[in-house]
């Protein structure tokens, strides 16, 4: 226990590791996309790493996690296999979905990462179904749905919310509010741009936190997880954040005119990794050297994942029908 931070040290080292892993992973994916080594569209998570990493920090392998088109960060944070997701982005047979799904359809059931759906709002209700299952099994599992602010424009979000509350399900709704649905800013789409305020009338436990601050997120979701495990019903956490890159792909879409360079820069100054690393170093949880070593280790891991992916085989068209039925 670090007294100044008043939080478990090991946890925050894990969160830091997770964030760095996601950052390097995504930077690598950006590289290979730029080099056109992959065709598969990729929605990168850079800038939002604190959210997945802090939310998943205390989740168990038996807990369920559901994700979206922007899936890589959630997958890695939940402990998904870095080789298998990299191979999937390359659409290879050794990929987590055998090359059938690509970046937007990833899975690692060993660690409770159930699926990602590229249909906006598509996985929220499915996550609630896992929460229903969890409640029936009564073994303290929780189900977590990650989704963006855009997904709250789909009616199914409200249906799902209502059902989870009425049935007091062990469900955590995690809204990553980066204020954009592709090119469209929140105020052009939403009557109340704060999701947590908008849904207060549903009588659900909500919190709104700085999505670039792992301490805030971790603390808030911790209470929610406890509530859920104690059969005290669902919660919604709204994490305000920003995506650094374009909606899809590796570039920094400043040319299209929907967002300003200064906004991006301001948010980049609020880099969640730098923030957490500084805090941990200043509070002597880790040293600068340890941090650098940690980065090296993870860099290696990601490089190896790329090698793994490239060495993986392409799916054999003879088996194209495999997996249609079970």
């Amino acid at each position, binding site marked *: 226990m670090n007294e100044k931070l008043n939080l478990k040290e090991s946890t925050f080292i894990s969160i830091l590791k997770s964030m760095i892993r996601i950052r390097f992973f995504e930077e690598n994916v950006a590289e290979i996309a730029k080099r056109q080594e992959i065709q598969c569209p990729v929605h990168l998570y850079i800038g939002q790493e604190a959210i997945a990493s802090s939310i998943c920090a205390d989740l168990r392998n038996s807990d369920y996690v559901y994700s979206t088109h922007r899936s890589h960060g959630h997958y890695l944070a939940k402990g998904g296999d870095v080789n298998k997701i990299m191979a999937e982005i390359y659409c290879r047979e050794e*990929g987590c979905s055998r090359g059938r799904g690509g970046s937007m359809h990833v899975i690692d059931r060993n660690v409770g990462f159930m*699926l990602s759906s590229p249909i906006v709002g598509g996985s929220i209700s499915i996550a609630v179904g896992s929460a229903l299952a969890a409640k029936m099994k009564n073994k303290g599992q929780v189900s977590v749905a990650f989704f963006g602010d855009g997904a709250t424009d789909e009616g199914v979000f409200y249906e799902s919310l209502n059902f989870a509350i009425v049935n007091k399900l062990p469900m955590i709704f995690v809204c990553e509010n980066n204020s954009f649905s592709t090119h469209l800013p929140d105020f052009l789409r939403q009557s109340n741009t704060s999701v947590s305020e908008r849904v207060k009338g549903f009588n659900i436990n909500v919190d709104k936190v700085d999505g670039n601050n792992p301490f805030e997120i971790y603390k808030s979701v911790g209470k929610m997880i406890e509530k859920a495990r104690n059969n005290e019903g669902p919660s919604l956490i709204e994490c305000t954040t920003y995506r650094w890159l374009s909606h899809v792909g590796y570039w920094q879409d400043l040319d299209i005119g929907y967002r300003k360079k200064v906004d991006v820069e301001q948010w980049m100054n609020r880099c969640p990794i730098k923030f957490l690393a500084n805090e941990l170093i200043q509070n002597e949880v880790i040293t600068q050297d340890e941090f650098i070593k940690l980065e090296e280790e993870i860099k290696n891991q990601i490089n190896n994942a790329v090698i793994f992916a490239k060495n993986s085989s392409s799916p054999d068209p003879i088996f194209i029908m495999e997996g249609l039925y079970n």
Partner: protein
Amino acid sequence: MKKIKYSAAINQAQHLVMDKYESVIQIGVGINTPWYVGQTMNGLLNRYGEERMIDTPVSENATTGIAIGAALSGYRPILTFPRMDFMYYAMDQICNHAASLNYSLGGNSPVPLVIRAIINRKGEQAAQHSQAIHALFMHIPGLKVVMPSNAYDAKGMLIAAVEDNNPVIYIEDRELYEFESEVPEDYYTVSLDKANVELEGNDLTIVSSSYMMHQCRIAVKALAEKKISVDLIDLRSIKPIDSETILNSIRKTGKLLVVDGGWLTGGVAAEIISIVVTQGMQYLKSNPVRITLPDLPAPASFVLENAYYPDNTKIFQSAISLCL
């Protein structure tokens, strides 16, 4: 063997699977009231309680996703739509998710989900409360779609659907609920991919399913009096389709009449005919014929309904012309 009603057969099947598998749960709008589902749910709420019999708000889209999520997490949900018309709200979950998840995720994420979809024809209920849109689901890869025509199959196929690891759209027609047939009391399954040659004959093959089978049976009796003997094939499953059984029959009779309870264009009848002529047109002695609904939303007035819904007379007449 005891004769029981089609609706009672569905009820029996559900009692048996809920008894056998703790993992079977039920969910849907109105499943706990006879208003929506006739007698098919009798006794289930009392016996299995609200935890396993979840009557939901009218949130068809989320409810379907919830059923999928439960199916991915160790349960085998039966999701009921009291009218097929309401399924449009849930198409994203049915077609984008339930149907393709397992494939897109590499083959190890089975969705053992049964969707009971009920057709409500007639009764001056008009366009939005009378639809038979089974053909839409037939088009979606990853689904299985069955539509039993009698109590025996209704029971056996519902049990088989629950035991199957894939999403199965199980289609009932309320018009069938009162029809009786012999049904064993015990647990049995009927395969989800085999058509049934209900009657054998030599002059003509009639292919049909669900409620239209009932109209066909009446027509076939009348045809027998005219010395026309019919191979009457009950499709039972429209995805997958048992092409072999149909083609075998055509080889014998050389004539094909397809009777389907849905719309004409892009319907089941078109698919059956296509299968036959792409694989065995040489066996056909005359143009195949399809009897379906016209390409028209259901009208309310029963006078128009009578013109809208094809019946045994129409089948009889078509068969006669085909065999002349």
